[in-house]
């Protein structure tokens, strides 16, 4: 099972906590998926409001590790301050670092991401950067102190799957010892299986489960696909070929023409 910053988790699924029809369905989805990590965020709260405490109680009952994010941050300063507030609230050095660079695609800002990753690492954070599959960016993130990389499969919330399989495969080959997580863009369990077949360590998703007609059942579907894809990776798949090759032996076939 994957190890993130010396912590082994018991699942290859990291599951978001947003957009579920109800808290009860969220809890069911986590139970049936077996997800080991839940992503969470920080948002404004008014005096007397109990939304924060209620959500805290809910996720505490899930019994999973928490990965706070800096979702929606577009500047380094904003991301760093959000991370610091999240560390105090959730009592963890883990941070899913998002520095958004483009409003339509929610593509990471690679320049701000590296700068923020360095600042947070120097401040004692263990950074999980939401990044693209760009090899140079990923190399800079590792030099900035990241020991996990989380490239997107496709833009957040699209469900388009792995848009650049070549790039993701290349990243796996270049960083064989760095835990790699496909974060964002997955819509179906088959896409999660594909990430596993490429040798990725985990996937992080939210919308695909939360917006399914039956989130808990979809969560279990993802869990099974991750198992299947990982087994395939460990089993050393056959090489594809262009020409047909009979699997049934020719020798001994009855002559009936």
């Amino acid at each position: 099972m994957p190890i993130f910053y010396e912590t082994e988790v018991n699942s290859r699924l990291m599951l978001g906590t947003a957009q579920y029809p109800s808290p009860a369905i969220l809890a069911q989805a986590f139970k049936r998926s077996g997800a080991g990590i839940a992503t969470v965020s920080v948002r404004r709260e008014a005096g007397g409001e109990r939304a924060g405490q209620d959500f805290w109680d809910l996720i505490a009952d899930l019994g999973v590790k928490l990965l706070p994010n800096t979702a929606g941050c577009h500047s380094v300063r904003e991301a760093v301050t959000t991370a610091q507030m999240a560390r105090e609230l959730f009592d963890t050095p883990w941070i899913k670092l998002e520095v958004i660079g483009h409003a339509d695609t929610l593509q990471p800002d690679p320049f701000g991401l590296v700068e923020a990753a360095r600042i947070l690492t120097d401040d004692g954070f263990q950074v999980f950067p939401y990044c693209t599959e760009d090899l140079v960016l990923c190399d800079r993130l590792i030099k900035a102190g990241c020991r996990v990389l989380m490239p997107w499969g496709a833009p957040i919330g699209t469900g388009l799957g792995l848009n650049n399989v070549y790039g993701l495969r290349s990243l796996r080959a270049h960083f064989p010892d760095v835990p790699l997580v496909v974060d964002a863009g997955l819509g179906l369990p088959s896409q999660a299986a594909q990430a596993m077949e490429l040798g990725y360590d985990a996937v992080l998703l939210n919308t695909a489960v939360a917006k399914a007609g039956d989130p808990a059942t979809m969560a279990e579907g993802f869990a099974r696909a991750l198992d299947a894809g990982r087994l395939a990776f460990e089993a050393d798949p056959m090489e594809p070929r262009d020409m047909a090759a009979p699997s049934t032996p020719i020798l001994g076939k009855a002559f009936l023409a």
Partner: protein
Amino acid sequence: MKIIVNGAAHDTAATTLAGLLDELGHGQAKIATAVNEAFVPAAMREKQTLTMGDRIEIVAPRQGG
């Protein structure tokens, strides 16, 4: 004193961040704070004095992806 709390204008009698949080009814709520875009740890709220025009952010745990 006029300040900005979570993006909205607010008139406060408090002189410190801790006083403001009491005034707003946060009590022992699970919150984190920033003043003028800089994080202020819980232990520093008593010492964090407020100045007119300060921008205060008060956040709590929420759902995220």
